């Protein structure tokens, strides 16, 4: 990632602080509502609005993204255990990651409209695309 994109993503992440989990949880909820077939990966959870189980998973996603933000130089290495899990054990269609990332962008745009300039938007898309490639290398 180019220095300007890295700086933008890092700055936004600092601003989000400990609230990343709130936004990733909202992103998951939005994905389930807008793309109902995505619920197929979570049939073992209570998916009703406000579910603590969804919030717990949202926090896991947040922690992984925060880890990624701090290891932009080696995303494939940093996320290798998640790649194994999602590819071979959970067998997640990479399209699902794109849907979740889109809903995360909608969520962040909604909560931080003043920060969500087109350039910030572009930097986030690049970051999330790198994360998706690291999680699902065959998706490209």
């Amino acid at each position: 990632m180019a220095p300007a994109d890295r700086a933008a993503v890092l700055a936004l992440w600092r601003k989000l602080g400990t609230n990343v989990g709130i936004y990733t949880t909202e992103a998951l909820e939005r994905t389930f509502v807008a793309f109902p077939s995505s619920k197929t990966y979570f049939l073992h959870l209570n998916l009703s609005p406000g579910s603590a189980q969804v919030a717990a998973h949202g926090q896991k996603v947040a922690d992984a993204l925060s880890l990624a933000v701090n290891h932009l130089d080696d995303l494939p290495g940093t996320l290798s255990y998640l790649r194994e899990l999602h590819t071979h054990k959970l067998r997640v269609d990479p399209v699902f990651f794109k849907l979740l990332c889109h809903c995360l962008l909608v969520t962040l745009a909604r909560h931080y409209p003043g920060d969500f300039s087109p350039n910030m938007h572009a930097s986030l898309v690049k970051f999330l695309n790198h994360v998706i490639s690291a999680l699902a290398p065959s998706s490209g």
Partner: protein
Amino acid sequence: MSILLTHPCPSPTPGGGPLPLTNSLILLGEGRTLGQEMRNKRPHSEEAAQTCFWPIRITSKLPDTMVHFTTEEKAAVASLWAKVNVEVVGGESLARLLIVYPWTQRFFDSFGNLYSESAIMGNPKVKAHGRKVLNSFGNAIEHMDDLKGTFADLSELHCDKLHVDPENFRLLGNMILIVLATHFSKEFTPQMQASWQKLTNAVANALAHKYH
């Protein structure tokens, strides 16, 4: 539309495990799966389950090719559309497409200065074309039951003359959603997003319909 399935009962699985189709995730529409239908309609007694054939009539619709919008979805879309400034949202959506997905600039060579975020956001031709694109969404909202017919001419134009890959229509649809989210954070609930998502996906499909 209804389909009649006859599912032969196999000899009981060791430990009485579920029959394979009851685990099916085949989607029937309205978020219901074949597996759920089979679990709901399975014979209640073991004796009944032992009969050779187990007829199940599934009376729900299979997804058809025409997108169906519920009354609630149409109302949600219309309520937000009434508040949209077409020039602002249209211009910004197109500008974001050009900035976030730079290859899309190739379709707008005649638009002049597209060299920076501020140039694109301030470009009058981008704003004008964005307004045109969003006006066609307004047309879509008035004809939500016949999007393929409504966009037939535009589909031919984008295929034969403009050579735009249909994936770009989905990307522009997503830009519109993100711009709506920045302008209407309170109204843009998950349900509102889902209704607009369905609309933008359907418009993208309608635009891609005439491709050959």
